[in-house]
């Protein structure tokens, strides 16, 4: 046995030979080789024989390659030519196909750019993988449903560094506003950071001037970004110049920072040295240095580890109880969050800037995928439907000896060609539309294809995928025709025609299902947004100008300004409060008889006597604050209804109540619930009390009610009056506009959704248009005969439209439950929301049906009105 096996040539070599020798069916040449092999084997032994066999293969390979290359080149050339001819011959189809793909790809590229941008946040820091930020969880203090806070007390930095040897650097950041003044060039800057010197070691913020090591060492040294250097200094060299801040402190400029990239989870323009704070806080911080104050929850703390290999173990050590360092008992816990998780990790309380959410990334990826699918389906549909026109070509090719594989290769190649053409066009479109898209998203996206290998390769991958996906079905379908049938004139068996039309119908149904889902979602989102905008908030919001107050001196003595303002004829009323009624941000511990130990904090409003009247907030019971009763200043509290129901009082008036004051007060009134924060949440308990003189820092907002006539004139007057009392530049806004900003994210979402819906529908309609023109084209004769037999125009229109309407309706029916569940989930984000109801569904039906009717009507009408003489002339 073994002897016989030895006589066989090496298996692998034989297999190669089998592949490269042309007479694959008969293997006679393989037999020849084997015979000769045997002879060599017998005369000179197995080694020589094997060597001989391999040598034969080595000799054949160059020829084989040359041959293959030659023929495949010839064929590719031919395929290419045919493809281009086809594009030229069927212009409408080609345009519809390419347009669909281009639009789909453009949208997908945009969405990809957006996702890439979102994912790239904070990754540009060299040590990004080992930077964490400290979060504090306060289980007793839940604000807006979240108990995580991005704030920590200043001594925590040293405590953590002591306790964890893994930490290499730690830095605290204080974010404030600053009135910056340089040679009377004076602005209020909102993005003013004060940070430890380690800040520059942890993060990668390169300096264009100054020394990274020492820039933040000295007290009252400051860094500013290039943009700010330009703004304040123009052509001057800012290094070493003195900036005056808050009319109090002189900072020396020790460096210029590159502008902070847009994909950073915090943005700042100025970076002051931490050491300055010792002087600044010494004024009002009683009892020791602020840096030992465990109650001062004002800083953001970031830490950076020695090496990234520690992160896993380090992570497992958290959360840590704050008690461990602080000494006094507290429920607070210390958490850490990796830097790169911050942007997509949603918001905690006290974020420096609103973060995005990973769910939005998923959501947009899904949309991109759907749009791409719709576009691919389009292509599949049209090329399968158009197959009839290419049957002869397929038949001839098969007769000439093309095997199925060749044809599949040809048609896949064609769809790849389409995909790449579409890619080129969409790259162009992306380049053109990028600025518009960036401003739509309010993000500075950049798009460089050719210097970014990753983008380029992923784009090519996407096109190849699109090409293969959209070309696969047509390729298999087209290559399956039997030449005998085609040439017999039987063209195609009814079975396969039915099968393919079933497949095509499924595609159309899917397209319309997707589009209808998007339409329904858009309508519901729009309705909800409309609802939010028009919902009675429980207070008046028209013609109210709000002005935030930063100036400390003005806060302490606002009376004269207020008097001055109220003297002006077109100003109806003025009031001062710590917050505006639509966004009461802070809460405080409160006390009443029978309060449980873990009772919640209440949001609080510090107001003037006229506040409730000013905003038209109505009392449910009790009385308003009164100037006659002097004890009201310290001892009167007004609660809202949710506070009363939370406490559980039947009769609230006259009950003992206290909110961080020395003297107990009592409840004098209860106001109707008004929306003191966004409509995402149920109205939370709120306490309203009067401003007293010791609480001057609670003077945060002026609200000015103005006459509806001559608004701009009044604004100018207001500006002038503020100028007289405060050096701070005035920034005002209208209350209703400010309220809208609460729902910015949803509005953006709605807007984007609208655009993408439009695109999806457009592509689906394109496909339907193509399909309709094919279907009517194929039925020209039928229609002609029907007409000669007396069919009316309307009956023919009905006949032709019926088919498409059936598909559209099935799509719509599928879309209903899908969109209902999706939107039901989305609406849960809002405590106050619309009922979904039937209107969006009916609206979507009307829109989809009308659009698809409109799309097919042109073709249908053309076919129905055609003169039967023309359509029957051939016979």
């Amino acid at each position: 046995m073994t002897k016989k096996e030895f006589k066989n040539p090496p298996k692998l070599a034989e297999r190669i030979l089998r592949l490269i020798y042309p007479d694959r069916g008969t293997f006679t040449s393989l037999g020849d080789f084997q015979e000769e092999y045997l002879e060599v084997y017998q005369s000179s032994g197995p080694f020589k024989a094997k060597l001989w066999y391999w040598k034969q293969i080595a000799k054949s390979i160059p020829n084989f390659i040359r041959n293959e290359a030659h023929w495949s080149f010839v064929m590719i050339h031919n395929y290419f030519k045919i493809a281009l001819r086809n594009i030229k011959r069927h212009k409408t189809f080609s345009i519809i196909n390419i347009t669909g793909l281009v639009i789909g790809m453009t949208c997908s590229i945009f969405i990809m750019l957006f996702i890439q941008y979102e994912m790239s946040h904070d990754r540009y820091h060299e040590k990004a993988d080992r930077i964490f930020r400290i979060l504090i969880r306060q289980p007793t203090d839940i604000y807006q449903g979240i108990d995580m806070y991005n704030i920590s007390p200043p001594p925590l930095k040293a405590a953590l560094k002591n306790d964890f040897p893994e930490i290499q650097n730690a830095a605290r950041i204080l974010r404030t506003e600053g009135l910056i003044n340089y040679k009377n060039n004076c602005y209020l800057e909102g993005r003013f950071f004060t940070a430890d010197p380690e800040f520059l070691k942890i993060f990668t913020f390169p300096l264009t001037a100054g020394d990274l090591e020492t820039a933040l060492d000295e007290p009252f040294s400051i860094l500013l970004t290039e943009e700010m250097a330009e703004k304040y200094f123009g052509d001057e060299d800012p290094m070493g110049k003195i900036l005056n801040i808050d009319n109090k402190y002189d900072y020396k400029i020790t460096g210029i920072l590159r502008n902070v990239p847009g994909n950073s989870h915090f943005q700042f323009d100025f970076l002051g040295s931490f050491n300055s704070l010792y002087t600044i806080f010494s004024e009002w911080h009683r009892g020791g240095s602020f840096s030992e104050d465990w109650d001062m929850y004002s800083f953001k703390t970031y830490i950076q580890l020695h090496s990234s290999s520690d992160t896993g173990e380090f992570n497992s050590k958290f959360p840590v109880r704050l008690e461990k360092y602080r000494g006094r008992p507290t429920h607070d816990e210390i958490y850490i969050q990796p830097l790169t998780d911050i942007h997509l990790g949603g918001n905690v309380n006290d974020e420096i800037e609103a973060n995005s959410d990973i769910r939005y990334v998923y959501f947009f990826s899904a949309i991109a995928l759907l749009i791409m699918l719709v576009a691919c389906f389009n292509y599949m549909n049209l090329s399968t439907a158009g197959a009839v026109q290419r049957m002869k070509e397929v038949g001839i090719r098969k007769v000439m000896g093309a095997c199925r594989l060749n044809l599949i290769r040809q048609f896949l190649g064609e769809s790849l060609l389409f995909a790449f053409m579409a890619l080129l066009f969409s790259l162009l479109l992306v380049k053109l539309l990028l600025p518009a898209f960036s401003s739509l998203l309010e993000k500075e996206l950049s798009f460089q294809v050719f210097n970014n290998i990753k983008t380029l390769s992923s784009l090519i991958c996407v096109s190849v995928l699109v090409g293969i996906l959209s070309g696969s079905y047509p390729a298999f379908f087209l290559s399956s025709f039997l030449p005998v049938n085609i040439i017999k004139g039987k063209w195609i068996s009814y079975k396969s025609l039915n099968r393919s039309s079933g497949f095509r119908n499924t595609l159309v149904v899917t397209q319309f299902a997707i589009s209808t889902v998007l339409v329904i979602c858009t309508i519901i989102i729009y309705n909800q947004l409309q609802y939010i905008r028009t919902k009675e908030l429980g207070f008046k919001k028209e013609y109210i100008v709000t002005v935030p107050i930063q100036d400390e001196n003005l806060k302490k003595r606002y009376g004269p300004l207020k008097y001055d303002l109220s003297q002006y004829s077109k100003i109806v009323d003025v009031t001062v409060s710590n917050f505006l009624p639509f966004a009461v941000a802070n809460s405080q511990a409160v006390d009443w008889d029978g309060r449980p130990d873990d009772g919640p904090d209440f949001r609080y409003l510090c107001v003037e006597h006229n506040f409730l009247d000013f905003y038209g907030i109505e009392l449910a019971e009790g009385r308003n604050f009164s100037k006659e009763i002097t004890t009201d200043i310290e001892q009167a509290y007004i609660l809202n209804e949710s506070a009363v129901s939370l406490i559980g009082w039947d009769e609230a008036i006259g009950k003992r109540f206290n909110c961080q004051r020395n003297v107990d007060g009592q409840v004098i009134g209860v106001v109707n619930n008004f929306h003191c924060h966004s409509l995402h949440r149920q109205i939370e308990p709120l306490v309203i009390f009067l401003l007293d003189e010791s609480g001057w820092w609670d003077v945060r907002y002026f609200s000015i009610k103005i006459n509806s006539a001559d608004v701009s004139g009044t604004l100018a007057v207001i500006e002038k009056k503020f100028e007289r009392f405060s050096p701070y530049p005035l920034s005002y806004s209208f209350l209703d506009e400010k309220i809208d900003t609460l729902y910015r994210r949803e509005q953006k979402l709605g807007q984007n959704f609208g655009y993408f819906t439009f695109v999806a529908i457009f592509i689906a309609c394109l496909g339907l248009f193509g399909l309709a023109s094919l279907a009517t084209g194929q039925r020209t004769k039928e229609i002609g005969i029907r007409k000669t037999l007396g069919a009316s125009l309307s009956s023919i229109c009905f006949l032709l439209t019926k088919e498409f309407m059936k598909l559209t309706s099935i799509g719509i029916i599928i879309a209903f439950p899908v969109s209902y569940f999706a939107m039901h989930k989305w609406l849960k984000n809002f405590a106050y929301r619309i009922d979904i109801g039937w209107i969006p569904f009916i609206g979507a039906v009307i829109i989809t049906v009308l659009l698809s009717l409109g799309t097919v009507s042109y073709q249908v009408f053309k076919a129905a009105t055609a003169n039967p003489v023309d359509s029957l002339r051939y016979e």
Partner: protein
Amino acid sequence: MKFLSRPEELVLLAVWRLKENAYCVPIKKQLVKSTGHDWSFGAVYDPLDRLEKKGLLESHFSEPTARRGGKRKRIYKLTPSGIMSLIDIKTISDEVWEGIPLKTLKEEP
């Protein structure tokens, strides 16, 4: 008639010589023997294919044999026009070589 290339000529002749056993391996051996050069299989297949296409040869498959690992032989046979062609070749080459003995060729400088 059309002229054949030299390898075609040699292969055709070899097929005639081998009669019943004219398949690739013995053809190749015959060629090696008569020309003294090494012939690869490819160099034999190619003229065989062309001759067949020209109608000078025809082929059929033999029963598979174990010696060849169960593969068939492709056995070639001259067609009448193949024989005609051989006759032509013989006549022409005899004609052109008429009166030139090998000796005289070797004597020329």
